[in-house]
């Protein structure tokens, strides 16, 4: 009942560090560690890792493309983006492509293991900046004041529930999942699963995805 993990990173030092982290925990099973996009694509077609850690800056193809392909074929697959500074545009793009979370490259070994287990259990990490961007992207209908949606919403903008909106607002203020759980009177685990649901909504509603789907169906 171990969690199978694939690590994709072209930097040998990072590849080693994340592989070591996976190997260090008995519940995790390292399915492979590859340094190119093509190798990763082959691995993903041949095997079905539970969690894939993907670097966005691969030499041969964009990590976002890899994420999109994989989650389209296997919607339940968890893809975690590896990023140096959690720099927001790229992270948001990967989430819209289907990623369910991200890891900073300087994350400690223990946190890497914990994050892999967390995402596999149905939760997703999120930083205040990302929460803010997601809120801005979704333009929640129940937003206060700010004139009831001046322009008709972007048809690709996913509708968020009130609860999801509340959670994102707390995250954007820097509150931890535990603190949010206390505020909303739900368990921290429920909070993280909400975040993962939000990510999934974003992925389904992302414009690129919609265009891609339409292309697949022969509409374009």
């Amino acid at each position: 009942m171990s969690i199978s993990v694939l690590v994709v990173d072209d930097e040998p030092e990072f590849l080693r560090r994340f592989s070591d982290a996976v190997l260090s925990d008995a519940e995790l099973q390292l399915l492979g560690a590859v340094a190119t996009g093509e190798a990763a694509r082959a691995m993903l077609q041949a095997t079905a890792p539970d969690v894939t850690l993907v670097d966005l800056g691969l030499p041969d193809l964009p990590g976002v493309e890899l994420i999109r392909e994989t989650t389209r074929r296997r919607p339940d697959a968890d893809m975690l983006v590896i990023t140096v500074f959690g720099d927001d545009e790229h992270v948001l793009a990967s989430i819209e492509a289907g990623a369910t979370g991200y890891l900073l490259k300087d994350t400690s070994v223990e946190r890497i293991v914990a994050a892999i287990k967390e995402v596999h259990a149905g939760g997703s990490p999120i930083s205040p900046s990302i929460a803010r961007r997601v809120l801005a992207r979704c333009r929640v209908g129940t937003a206060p004041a700010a004139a009831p949606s001046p322009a008709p919403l972007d048809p690709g903008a996913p509708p968020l529930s009130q609860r999801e909106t509340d959670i994102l607002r707390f995250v954007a203020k820097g509150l931890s999942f535990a603190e949010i759980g206390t505020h909303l009177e739900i368990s921290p685990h429920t909070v993280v699963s909400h975040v993962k649901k939000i990510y999934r909504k974003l992925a389904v509603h992302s414009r690129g995805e919609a265009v891609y789907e339409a292309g697949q169906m022969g509409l374009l």
Partner: protein
Amino acid sequence: MKPARWACCSAFAAALWLAAAGAAAGAVVEPTRAEVLVDDRAQPPPDDAAWRTVRLPDASHDGRARALWLRIAFERPADGEPWAVYWPYLYGGGAFWLNGAPLASVPQTDATRHVRWQRPQLIPLPESRLRPGPNVLQVRVVAADPPNGLLMARPAIGPHAALLPQHDRRLLWMRTMPQAIGLVCLLASVLVAFIWWRRPSEVLYGLFALALALWGARTLVFVVEQLPNAEWAASRAFYHAATGGFIVVLSLFAMRYAGAYRQWVGRALFGYWAIGPLVRLLPAAQAEAWVGRLWIAGMIPVGMSIAVFIGRAWWRDRSAESAALLAAVALAVTAGVHDYLVAWRAPIVELLLPGWPGHRILLMHHGATLLLLVMGFLLTARFVDTLFEVEVLNRTLEERIAAREAALAENYERLAQLERERATTEERQRIMQDMHDGLGSQLVTALYRTERGALDAAQTSALLRGCIDDMRLAIDALAPADQDFGVALANLRWRWQPQLEAAGIVPQWTIEAPAEGWPLSAHAGLQVLRVLQEALTNVIKHAHAGRVEVSIRTTDGAFVLDVRDDGCGIAATFASPSGRGLANMRRRAQRIGARLQAQPAAPGTRIVLTLPVAATRIA
């Protein structure tokens, strides 16, 4: 507007015409001949005197005689109707006798007074005094002052009812109308003068007011029917001054209207105008003739020049206004010349229209009135046009102002944009410098120490993590979309929460974001976050604390960061030789104009950074 104006003019002209036309004479006798005897007696001369026969009306009589008697025989049919005699004018006054007995009289010019009797007479012939068959009417006609002199009207004798309309009509036109027009002119003059008083630059209004006043005064002279000898010359001088002045003022008006006014012409006209009244005041028997015949004749070319100037204006602008004015001037000038010729009994009039001068129908009154009316219309139209122009101008002006405002707003926006760009550039440079001095030197220090083997793995790791944390802060502070201290602070809190918890420290955050946003620039925010990060690092590394309270808020005029732990106190916390933390924090605070205090708390340490809001914008 224009058609309506023309309709008004036409209606007025038609009314004049209709009123003048019409009237009938039933069984009325209009004697065309009478017997005349020059005789100054107050009673009719005897039948056997040297009467001679003349045609009526007669204006040919010698002007030097003082009075004469007229004898008219008429038949009285036995119809029983009340009869009367209608006498159109009797300028010098006179008396009526019927069948040898006095019937009625009108004040007469004599040695003490001058009479100007403008009214027509309608004298009832009492039935008791009339004889069936032939009757004799004897009338004493007193010479009026020149130019009228000894004038014999053509009377009408007949039923009173048949003569009444004729009498009333002449009364209306020759007396009532001039009176009314005189009064109206004076009133209108006051109104127009008021406009001119408020707008002295509108000279046309001033001249129009003057013309109205002069014409009104001249017309009202005729209201006075008897004058003592002493006042007679002055009255005539006044009359001539008004008449001549009217013509001169109209001429000035026409010149200005045509834009052809020359000062010397104005002066010359004024000089000529002044001659008339002055001459009339001379104590000479011929004064009236000199002025009335010669001086007034000199006004005829002036009057014609009016028509020329208006004609020139019309030739240039071809406007309906100028055309109407030209027509009115032409009519008035013609009427004036006509009246002059009739008054002085020019032979040419007798030649063209035999007997016409004797009827004494003078047209100038009406011509001038019509002219004044047209001038009034014209100036009113100009006034109204001006109002419209002002409206249009206002609208144009408003549009221009709006356009200018838009341009200004655009300029302002462009300047603001430049200012923002400049501010952003400066901010970036400041942060670059900051990273260069801070992160750069930290990394170089780490390099040197590692190279000389002074650091073990754990120390190197800690040093590098510090560098990475610093870098994160800089990236958060610089993130273009979230240049907001709140987001950077949230990110810091989110990163530090697990670290603090992992170190066994319970953090408590009190963040009171002001509604209008944090009053911090990106650079100041970055320094504040670094101070906070340094403080938290010290708490984890050296304080041995169980709790840390972080409070960030704005109070009156200041931004306050307050970090309090329950650890081992200042001395122990900052004792470490490698942790020059406190000095670092002070330097950063100083750089943005903030004050940093490190105080002992009981237990633990309290670090308070206070930044006056005035300084935050600049920092």
